[in-house]
């Protein structure tokens, strides 16, 4: 407990002594994490919107009209491959009923006796990008007359490519921003170590272990990261919460229905990122600097 007290005193006195440095580090982390959070929110919303479109992509399998019920059930079971989320069977009777309800003036009397429609399987995919692979597989199954997708192939392809690009670009941008924050905290702690090199040297001279010396600096990095993250989270909340509940038509188009949950998950990630960046940023600075300072 006394050691913990010593570390807390050392950390707080260090922060108090280097107020300007502390302010600089926290504000830089705040700005970086705010940008990171804003980017995450924008990226999450865009991906959600595009993702929502891609999830509308599903497959309709038209079975041959003369197919037996047992073969139909076999195909229904065979359609449950790992890429498929759900399979719904629409019998030809249900399909005809749907058709008559869609087109009111359609003469159905004759068709009821001799239904030309086939049974259908409506297939929802887990990953829309697998649509072509699943379609090729199901087309090759005996008893399948044809497969239909709601959009043209090139539209589906473009939608999937845009979705993939946004995902990859977002991850790359998040990594670059994260690396920037890591370097900023790393530099702030290095400067703190440099300012306290005399004290660190004395600690080493009187027999403090390198770990004992490191812990107050790790705590300091953690505090910088956490404080920056909390402020950034509050700012993000203040800016984006009104947007998620907006009635402005343009924003309603841009902001997805689940914007609230994107924002909440974004805030949790920002806090976690702040803590991790603070810890690892100072860890990076300490691994070499402390060793040199102690043994000098």
């Amino acid at each position, binding site marked *: 407990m006394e050691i913990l007290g010593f570390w807390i005193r050392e950390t707080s006195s260090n922060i108090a002594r280097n107020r300007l440095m502390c302010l600089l580090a926290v504000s830089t982390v705040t700005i970086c994490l705010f940008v990171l959070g804003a980017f995450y929110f924008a990226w999450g919303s865009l991906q959600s919107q595009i993702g929502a479109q891609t999830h509308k992509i599903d497959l309709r399998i038209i079975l041959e009209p003369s197919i037996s019920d047992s073969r139909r059930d076999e195909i229904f079971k065979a359609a449950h491959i790992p890429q498929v989320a759900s399979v719904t069977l629409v019998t030809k009777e249900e399909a005809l009923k749907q058709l008559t309800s869609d087109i009111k003036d359609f003469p159905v009397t004759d068709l009821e006796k001799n239904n030309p429609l086939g049974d259908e399987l409506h297939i929802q995919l887990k990953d829309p990008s697998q649509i072509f692979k699943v379609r090729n597989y199901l087309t090759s199954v005996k008893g399948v007359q044809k497969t239909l997708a709601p959009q043209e192939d090139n539209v589906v392809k473009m939608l999937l490519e845009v979705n993939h690009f946004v995902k990859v670009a977002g991850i790359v941008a998040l990594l670059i921003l994260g690396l920037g924050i890591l370097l900023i905290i790393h530099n702030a702690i290095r400067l703190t170590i440099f300012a306290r090199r005399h004290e660190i040297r*004395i600690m080493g*001279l*009187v027999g403090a272990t390198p770990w*004992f010396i490191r812990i107050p600096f790790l705590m300091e990095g953690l505090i910088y990261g956490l404080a920056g993250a909390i402020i950034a989270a509050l700012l993000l909340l203040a800016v984006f919460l009104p947007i998620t509940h907006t009635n402005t038509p343009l924003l309603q188009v841009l902001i997805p229905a689940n914007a609230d949950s994107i924002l909440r998950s974004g805030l949790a990630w920002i806090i976690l990122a702040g803590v991790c960046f603070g810890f690892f940023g100072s860890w990076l600075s300490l691994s070499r600097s402390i060793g040199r300072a102690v043994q*000098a």
Partner: protein
Amino acid sequence: MIKFENVTVCYNPNARHPDHAVEDINLQIEKGEWVFFVGHSGAGKSTLIKLLHGSAHTAPHGISINGKVLLEGRDITHLPAREVPFLRRKIGVIFQDFQLLPQKTAWENVAFALRVIGAPQQRIAREVPRALETVGLLHRAQARPSELSGGEQQRVAIARAIVNEPHLLLADEPTGNLDPETAAGIAAVLERINAERGTTVIMATHDHHLVDTLQRRVVRLRDGHIISDEEHGIYHPEDDIKPSPEDNESALEEVVAIKPKTDSGETPFGGESLQNEAPLGTPENPIPQFNRPKGQP
């Protein structure tokens, strides 16, 4: 007991011209003894102190250490880095520049040595006043280093060095920044610690007044070698100054230059011609010696 067995230390060992700091040192220091290391700058005094303190291994361009350094029977020559802090807890160390923390009071500076090794508060409350009392500074416990004189600051440094009750006290030029009177006061404090606590004291110094006054064991070093080891020695700093080869060469040139031969074989100063003199460097015609510190123009 401390023992150096055939110790050779070489800085920058992979360079074309490695720097041999000490060579083939054999030395034994008994528990409770007081030893001065004396010699010119670069003689190897601080290297021996660093070997005992476990801080020699961090030379920027590498170091090679041969032989053995034994402290209380334990070989500390190549101590793993993780064990160095625990060695240092048994050793007090003081420096010429005091190495105090300016923002902490005398009390906090002394307590700092115990806090960083995780000592409990009761022990800190017991040992810190005791150490400050030993150095005669209990009444200045709440003063910061900037409010203390040089001698008082060095006393705080001594209190910090002894607060953990070390077996060995290393002092590297502790009186280098102090006037003779204050230096004598510091020496008196160290003598008391040596006598009352039985702490072994090893001091590297240039202070011949201090060495001559105390008349303790004096180990004289020159160019990394022990050249004398006297039980009750005194220190003649002028003995440390020796001519460098460059000095000898320039002295030779000077002798030749001031004694040009005349046709009659005489010099302008009425001396005999070089032709009639014994060769330079022989007992009959020695090379002039210059009391000039090494490296100075």
